[in-house]
């Protein structure tokens, strides 16, 4: 990793924190009977742990081949979900439904970006099977349009989430959703976040922050590979 050493260390620290938090969400949501996007949280945990290992080889947990299999699986899952969603909803639901496709497509792109980084990065050493050295992509130098595409999608997603976060911050968060006593004109964001479900969402703002952090860190790593 080139550049000042504290930079990848900082990003790795953020990724460890995000992974830990998303793992806790997966456990707490069940315990507290709150809604979360299970697939997204699993993806965030996997990507966070994997990126921490790519940024700081000492944090490597699984062999590269295994990580590649994980992200092929995640890409297939989000690709399948996108296809199913489009087949079921396009032309039927309200316009807002189209945004739900971005929910899957963004994470499909993130999974593909992870795969690209594993394919593009060169092994740090022959003895360290899992350690990856980030840097200019040697064998993939002619495919640099891909990281630029990934970077664009991640940047748009991060910016859009910050915008949504600023909107959400103006709404009062009600743990139990909007009941008869709810103030008119105020839509409880917890209920909003839960969509059509009856259970309120678990810490929606924190989850959006995790997504933003994930996009920025992945963008940083992709920039190193341009």
């Amino acid at each position, binding site marked *: 990793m080139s550049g000042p050493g504290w930079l990848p260390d900082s990003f790795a620290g953020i990724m460890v924190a995000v992974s830990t938090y998303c793992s806790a969400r997966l456990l707490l949501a069940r315990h507290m009977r709150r809604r979360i996007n299970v697939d997204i949280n699993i993806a965030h945990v996997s990507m966070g742990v994997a990126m921490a290992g790519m940024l700081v080889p000492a944090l490597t947990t699984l062999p590269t081949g295994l990580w590649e299999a994980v992200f092929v699986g995640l890409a297939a899952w989000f690709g399948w979900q996108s296809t199913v969603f489009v087949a079921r909803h396009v032309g039927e639901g309200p316009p*807002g439904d189209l945004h*739900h496709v971005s929910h899957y497509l963004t994470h499909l792109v993130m999974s593909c970006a992870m795969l690209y980084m594993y394919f593009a990065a060169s092994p740090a050493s022959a003895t360290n099977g899992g350690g990856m050295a980030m840097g200019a992509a040697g064998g993939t130098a002619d495919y640099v349009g891909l990281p630029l595409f990934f970077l664009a999608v991640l940047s748009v997603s991060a910016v859009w989430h910050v915008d949504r976060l600023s909107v959400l911050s103006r709404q009062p968060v009600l743990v139990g959703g909007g009941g008869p006593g709810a103030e008119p004109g105020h839509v409880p*964001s917890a209920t*909003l976040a839960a969509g059509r479900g009856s259970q309120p969402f678990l810490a929606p703002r924190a989850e959006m922050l995790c997504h933003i952090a994930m996009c920025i860190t992945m963008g940083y790593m992709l920039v190193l590979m341009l």
Partner: protein
Amino acid sequence: MTDVAVAVSAVRSPAVGARRGSRDVRRVLQLLLATAWLVDGLLQFQPFMFTRAFGTQMLAGTAQGNPSAIAHSITWGDLVVGHHSVVADSLFAGLQLLIAFGIAWRPALKAALALSMAWSVVVWWFGEGLGGLFSGTANPVSGAPGAVLLYAVLAVVLWPADRAGTNPRFVAARAVGTSVARGVWVVLWALLAWFAVLGVNRSPQRLNQLVRQMATGQPRWLAGLDDHVAGALAQRGLGVSVALAAALGVVAVGVFLPPALARATTALALVLGAAIWVLGENFGGIFTGTGTDPSSGPLLVLIAAAYWPSQRSASAELDRQSVAA
């Protein structure tokens, strides 16, 4: 966690959405501007930017050809950056990320746009050598009058204010009024047209040289494209430059034309911005590992989008014409 964000979007009623339609277009453009700043900030994390060469060679190189006083100030500033490269580049990256997230975070929008204007001027001076305006090397194909200056233009025309009692023809007119917005457009595109045929840009081999220089360090497919384009431009620099200047001139006056024609000239501006970005700027040199931003092409496209004549104003124009008839 897009599902949560999606739910926030979906809660707006259709009536509110319709009433806020034109405002939403401006917000979309603001978010695209924020995205551009975010990409700039991330590009600032490239390893080369943390080296002494970034300040002492890359930035200081922009001083060449400028008047003595300006050149000295650029050299001085860039030497300071070069000697404190890690701290300086970390600050640059942090500031650009701050601007990006400030524009996206609605309560901080005005402060972030104001900061982006100030920062654009600083970078235009010390990082782009005033876009080559005073060195005689400015050419719209290679990014004149300086990509970062276009960020300041966008901050002005996308400022979150509405002039009372106006029926803006396009998004850019909402904050500053139609007259000022038209003035900004004409000055920008007329300057580009002038630069296209200025001094050395009229020479038969100028465009050929510009494109060939860009090929250095690019991936094979892009270098191959440059080779083809440079070959096509060989000894045809004057004719192509005049044609480009004419097209840019048409774009400049297009803002005064009726909506249908204005739409055509704005579409031409979009095409020119995209063509300049790909063929002339090679995506801002991002693939070379030393690109600090995507250059002027995408920003010209964004500016053109802010001047796209709206349907509402078009129907108002038709009403006005029928009343006059």
